[in-house]
């Protein structure tokens, strides 16, 4: 189950004596690692337009102080967009401080691109303002719906995989890209139900939406594994069917085994089977920016950093083995 990371109203925030930090790069002066944003145009998206960020972790509250004060080595951070779409206070100061030293990506959970409700223009305007302020390397959200009739379930629900849904979602992604003036990434979600009305496999649906919307794909390897178990499909078939040129980012996370189903809890280390699927994906898609998600029972920062290092090591090994096979 995906949990939306939440800012806190108190807790350690109240007791924290945080100094303002003004050193680092001013936002008007791009730091050396910054890659210019790809502005949305009518042309087909190009994977090379997205920065090769490397291996990152999600920016989570228990690590704010450590990151702001110690600047630990990390290629990049991903933030939950909604946590920073606020009017003021500590969240914005934190992100400003992190952004001064690291590339950042904004990952949303409430775009609700698959909803039958109209797009939420106020939400999009706030997201655009946040993106202009913090200059993320890219903006992403999920291929799902999160609410209907003006209500929000705060969850990522699957769609029926039909041609009608492809047209509905792709048209909305194009609108979002026009409003945000950038190509966005759409992520496959983990799911626990599948609809009898579906006429496409999930990977066919994801590909069709991305092609018709001309958007990029955030491929969550753990979500593929979880959904493959829950719906009994071959995860390798999924990975092998997604178009290489559209995949711009990977997600890796842990899940929980409930016996009759797997739950995407983001509260465990990454399982061996998911690492294996990741290595398979690396051999197909190459060195794609990879992000470790951990949203509950959050361990010390060093544990997350070690997981990012492990992803780097496995990525290198997978690419080496691919080169060896190619040479043979």
């Amino acid at each position, binding site marked *: 189950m995906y949990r939306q990371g939440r800012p806190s109203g108190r807790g350690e925030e109240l007791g924290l004596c945080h100094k303002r930090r003004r050193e680092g790069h001013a936002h008007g002066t791009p730091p050396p690692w910054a890659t210019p944003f790809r502005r949305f145009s009518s042309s087909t998206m190009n994977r090379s337009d997205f920065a090769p960020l490397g291996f990152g972790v999600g920016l989570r509250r228990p690590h704010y102080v450590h990151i702001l004060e110690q600047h630990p080595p990390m290629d990049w951070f991903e933030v939950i967009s909604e946590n920073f779409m606020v009017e003021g206070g500590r969240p914005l100061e934190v992100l400003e401080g992190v952004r001064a030293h690291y590339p950042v990506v904004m990952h949303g959970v409430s775009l609700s691109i698959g909803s039958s409700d109209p797009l939420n223009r106020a939400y999009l305007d706030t997201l655009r303002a946040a993106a202009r302020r913090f200059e993320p390397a890219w903006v992403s959200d999920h291929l799902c719906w999160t609410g209907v009739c003006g209500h929000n*379930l705060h969850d990522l629900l699957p769609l029926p995989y039909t041609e009608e849904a492809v047209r509905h979602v792709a048209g909305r992604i194009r609108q979002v890209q026009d409003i945000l003036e950038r190509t966005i990434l759409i992520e496959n979600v983990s799911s626990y139900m599948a609809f009898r009305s579906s006429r496409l496999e999930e990977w066919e649906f994801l590909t069709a939406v991305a092609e018709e919307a001309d958007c990029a794909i955030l491929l969550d390897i753990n979500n593929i594994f979880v959904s493959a178990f829950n719906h009994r499909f071959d995860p390798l078939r999924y990975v092998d069917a997604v178009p290489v040129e559209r995949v711009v980012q990977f997600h890796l996370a842990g899940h929980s085994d409930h016996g009759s189903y797997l739950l995407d809890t983001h509260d465990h280390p990454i399982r061996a089977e998911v690492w294996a699927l990741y290595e398979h994906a690396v051999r197909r898609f190459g060195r794609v920016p990879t992000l470790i998600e951990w949203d509950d029972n959050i361990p010390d920062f060093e544990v997350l950093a070690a997981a990012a290092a492990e992803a780097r090591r496995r990525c290198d090994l997978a690419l080496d083995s691919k080169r060896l096979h190619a040479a043979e």
Partner: protein
Amino acid sequence: MNLRELQSLLYQCITGSDLTNGNAGDERGRVLEELVHGDERLSASQRVGIYADGYFYRLLECLGEDFPAALAVLGADNFAALVKGYLLEYQPTEPSILYAGLYLADFLNNHPFGERWPFIAELARLERAVLDVFHAPDALALDVEGLRAVPSEEWPAIKLRTHSAVEIVHSEWRIADVLHRIEQGKEWKHPEHEEASVLVWRQNTLVHYRSLEPVERDALAAVSEGASFAAVCEAVAANAEEPNHTALIARLMARWLADGIVVAADNILAKRLHNQPAGAGDSG
């Protein structure tokens, strides 16, 4: 069934908002079997039930984090029952889960828990104020240097306002004492039944709160309405018990400036502040 009908039905099943219909369970199960694949591991209803459980427990956890004092007073089981009822009446509408508990204090106003814990709605209102202040818009707080930039003869006419990250919570119970003890990890005590006003403000991104005496409460009420400094002084003079009004006003003003809870509300003062060297008016 089109996409909207499908999503509306699933929404009702997940939130339990169709439970008022006595036959809804059977009918819902039949419809879900037609819509969602089931297998020997999980039926269609069980699969939708995973989302229903996720919805409730995610919001229960969220509201527990937003209202830790209400949770501590009520206990986990009562708090869960409270949230269950609340979500049937106030289903989240905002994209951010931050607003899920926006109406919990209102919901508690007429809740049966109020008989055993008559202060619980006010306690929840204070906790919500802390959360709102934490995320309230940033603004340039007025400080001593800023005020000194204004010639003293102009002071009566200048207008102040409370900072956007300031809220005053009025209550019939001494709820700040309860919140304070729970935040300190101490056992809470039933609060005194005594009118109180609690100032909640943010400074340097940290949220603070303290009880107000009536004279400061009324003075801040005048400030929040954009009254002139002269009018604020009159409000203080009308309520002050001590004879030296000037000293009292100076004390209050010094504290407001130190805490960063007032901003310039008129163009003259704002212009003077903006003409100062960079950072001179920044309370942080």
